[in-house]
């Protein structure tokens, strides 16, 4: 695993989880005495936004929500993708063909728009953000897992387990899943940046996470609206977002190259 991206991710996660309780300001507390102060102001090391909310507290809170959504949505996609791919690969034949056809067809759909529709129509709950994004991002996982299962099921230890009469569920759980784990984790790590990007995209448009919660997408939007007078309000959340995306992509790619 590449060392620098791993350290960056650990630092960002640790900061998002551990630092906010130590700060004097919460992410939505308004300091009327310090509206839109520049970085380096007393009490607000990174300044405040246009209504006097501490930018450091907001950036960390936003990072936390973004990571939470990403982890939850990626888990949803992992579960669906692995189950779908494992069943298709293991059962094979007509079922496999039908299931993979469905995956092909879904690949061609403008899914982002379906997610946007879901968000708009069914209230913008954060739970729906998880499920909606997870339900969109499982396709690649399903393809990869199916390929692995197809290769694994011809391996001698699997054939031996079948020959001694092990039930299919036991074979899948005991013999296939442990061998899939490496590839699945690699693709999980590659799914997370995708999910982060979708969540931020939706939040940027005002369709994802809603106030008083905040996320990196919302902060980038607020920063972009305010960038002519306070460029750091855009650079800080944008920088964190890019650092997360780049680091996870690099880690995921190196794991993928090792396992696949």
């Amino acid at each position, binding site marked *: 695993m590449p060392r620098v991206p791993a350290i960056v991710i650990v630092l960002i996660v640790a900061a998002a989880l551990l630092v906010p309780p130590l700060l004097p300001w919460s992410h939505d507390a308004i300091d009327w005495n310090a509206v839109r102060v520049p970085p380096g102001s007393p009490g607000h090391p990174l300044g405040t936004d246009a209504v006097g909310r501490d930018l450091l507290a907001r950036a960390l809170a936003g990072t936390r929500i973004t990571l939470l959504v990403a982890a939850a949505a990626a888990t949803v996609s992992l579960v669906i993708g692995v189950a779908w791919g494992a069943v298709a690969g293991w059962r094979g034949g007509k079922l496999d063909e039908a299931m993979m056809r469905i995956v092909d067809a879904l690949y*061609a759909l403008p899914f*982002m728009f379906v997610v946007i529709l879901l968000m708009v129509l069914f209230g913008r709950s954060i739970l729906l953000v998880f499920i909606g994004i997870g339900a969109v991002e499982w396709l690649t996982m399903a393809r990869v897992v199916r390929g692995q299962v197809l290769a694994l099921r011809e391996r001698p230890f699997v054939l031996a387990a079948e020959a001694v009469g092990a039930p299919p569920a036991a074979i899948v759980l005991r013999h296939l899943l442990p061998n899939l784990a490496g590839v699945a984790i690699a693709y999980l790590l590659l799914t997370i940046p995708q999910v982060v990007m979708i969540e931020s*995209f939706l939040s940027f448009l005002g369709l994802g996470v809603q106030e008083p919660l905040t996320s990196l997408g919302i902060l*980038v939007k607020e920063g972009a609206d305010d*960038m002519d007078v306070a460029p750091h309000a855009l650079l800080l959340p944008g920088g964190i977002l890019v650092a997360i995306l780049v680091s996870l992509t690099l880690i995921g790619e190196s794991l993928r190259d090792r396992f696949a």
Partner: protein
Amino acid sequence: MLLPWGLFGGIRLLMRALILRRLFTALPTLLAVVVLSFVLMKVAPGGPFDGERAIDPATQAALARAYGLDLPLHEQLWRYLARLAHGDFGPSLVYRDFTVTDLVTQGLPVSLTLGGLALVLALVLGIGAGLWAASRAGGIVDEALMMAMTLLTALPSFVVGPLLALMFGLWAGWLPVSGWGGGDPAHLVLPVVALALPMTGAIAKLARAGLATALAQDHIRTARARGLPPARILLRHALRPALVPVASYLGPAAAGLLTGAVVIETVFALPGLGGYFVQGALNRDYPLVLGVVTLYAALILLFNLLADLAYGWLDPRIRG
């Protein structure tokens, strides 16, 4: 560029059969998208005439009747599809006095210009970077370029857009940062670049990987053995088959362009389709949203079709 056999040799029967077959699978997909979106919008709570003030029941009933919203769901769907088949997207419920066709014909040229230019830029830069990296395979240029391309793929357009606007618009003052300017090229530079950059990274990586595979093949070894100049081997013998993975990316690229354009149009205040989509969704303007989704789906399916055709041109073995 994608249809040279149509220009030079006439469309072969084989290709025509392939196109027809693809169209027959694309149409049901399109229909499924339209029906799915239609049903989703109808079952969701809230309607286009919900407002701050309560409308009296008689008016509400009259509005519902006028727009056919009082009919059973399947009847509404059937009416919609029948009109759609005639190219009529229906009236906009929120922008009164405008049909969806009016709005779409206003927005589509802007979005197509933006998306088309971004795609061309991304293809040129991406394939160029892939070729350059492959010609220095294993060297420092190769590694640095591919690292830079990985960084590009991880940069979302909604971060790149505002950053470019900040640097080249507000700080340097070289380029305008918002508006269409009646199609003035200067207004297009920043949006097109912001939309193209993330895709450039993906295309470059695919092209580089394709070139690595292509360069390992026997006919390349033969060409090398016969002493052909490396540039000629790369461009004449390796590039075409190496572009197959790039072609397969065209479908997802179209989807990425359309979603990216929604954000870029918002950031740079361009009057494209994306703005209508977001506004329409927020206002529950059913016909407008359905119209835009249908159009987007059709464009994505069209790009998938183009990708299939491009395979055949790039690698004749796939044609069968």
